[in-house]
């Protein structure tokens, strides 16, 4: 049980996959499961810590006239609250803290992952898939709690003739079952692909320079700049999309009859 922090700064080899590798910082096995505190856990701690620090500072001031950070916190609050209200309705505001946490958890992880040597926790299917499954379980759980069996009316839209139902209901069920998969996969794939692309371009720069083609290295280098900006946009956008789709699914739980 030794904490090996030098391992947090891995030798950045010419390997685009190396950045996704998980290694333990603190070995721990409980109830037969390997629950080691890994580099992934460490960076998850960092991102949630930063998010909490930002929002905590923004909220604690509570001034009538906000300063910059307070204003930013209040804008975030209004942004997510408006999204929940406009997508899932007033009743959806019950889930506002959950959606808000989801958005900032993912945004924090995505943004922290943009910094060199940091680990992108949302680039692993275990994390994004688990979040997606939690969302769908909440949707199904609340839908049944609120509407009883009426929740399954979600699969049978109104005003559809019976013969069409035989085709439509299986399609609706499949599309519903695909939700956690697409929700988790979208975020994971975006983060993974983005980071591989950045890493590959960076590797090209190094390799071309190493091969004495420094003039050619300018091409991937100049390409790297807008793509880095794009990845910051994607980091925000994917957090937004995840939160927005959560609201859309919650709307189905609240009003299953479209």
């Amino acid at each position, binding site marked *: 049980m030794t904490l090996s922090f030098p391992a947090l700064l891995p030798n950045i*080899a010419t390997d685009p996959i190396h950045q996704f590798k998980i290694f333990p910082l603190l070995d721990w096995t409980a109830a037969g499961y390997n629950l080691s505190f890994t580099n992934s856990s460490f960076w998850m701690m960092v991102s949630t810590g930063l998010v909490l620090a930002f*929002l905590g500072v923004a909220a604690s001031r*509570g001034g009538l006239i906000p300063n910059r950070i307070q204003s930013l916190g209040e804008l975030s609050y209004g942004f997510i609250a408006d999204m929940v209200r406009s997508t899932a309705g007033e009743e959806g505001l019950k889930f506002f803290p959950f959606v808000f946490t989801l958005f900032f958890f993912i945004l924090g992880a995505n943004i922290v992952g943009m910094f060199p040597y940091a680990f992108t926790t949302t680039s692993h299917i275990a994390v994004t898939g688990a979040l997606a499954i939690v969302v769908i379980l909440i949707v199904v759980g609340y839908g049944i709690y609120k509407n009883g069996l009426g929740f399954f009316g979600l699969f049978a839209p109104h005003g559809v003739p019976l013969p069409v139902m035989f085709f439509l209901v299986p399609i609706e069920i499949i599309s519903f079952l695909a939700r956690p998969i697409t929700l988790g996969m979208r975020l994971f794939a975006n983060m993974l692909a983005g980071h591989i692309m950045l890493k590959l371009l960076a590797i090209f720069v190094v390799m071309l320079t190493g091969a004495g083609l420094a003039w050619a290295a300018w091409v991937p280098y100049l390409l790297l700049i807008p793509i880095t900006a794009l990845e910051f946009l994607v980091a925000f956008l994917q957090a937004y999309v995840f939160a927005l789709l959560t609201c859309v699914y919650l709307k189905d739980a609240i009003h299953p009859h479209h």
Partner: protein
Amino acid sequence: MSLLAFLAETAAHGGETVKAPFPAFDPTWFASQLFWLAVFFLGLYFALARFVLPKLSDTLEKRANRIAADLDEAARLNNQSVEAQKALELRLSQARSRARETADKAREKTEAELAAETARVDADLARKLETAEGRISKLRADAMKNVEQIAVDTAEAMTARLGVKASKADLKKAVKAALEKRA
């Protein structure tokens, strides 16, 4: 995924990673990932839901209330000023109509006085004129009587001188006729 696996395999170097699965799908760490995800996500959730979000919403609500109260106060003051303006205009118009009334009354009074004075003076003048005319006509009648007497006397004297005897009554009648013819 096969492309990624290919990338992983081709890019891997050294014996340690050759046989390892693609790290994003490596089940070795699933339990750890899920456990720490639950820890940090739930931790963040409770911290936000319990402390941060209520505080933010409280601040926003306080500000909204303050703004609403300030707007109400402004509306109240505005109403007050509008009412004051109305009262001012009402009193102004009242004062104006009173002034007009006073002026009208004064003018009417003056005109009446003027008319009365004019009438009085006119009557006085008329009266004086009448007296004067009466005197003139009397004087004239007197004068005419004297003229008649003189004419009769003259005619008597003339007739006497001519040796014609005429009665006084005839002379008078002749003079009168002559005078009437001339008149």
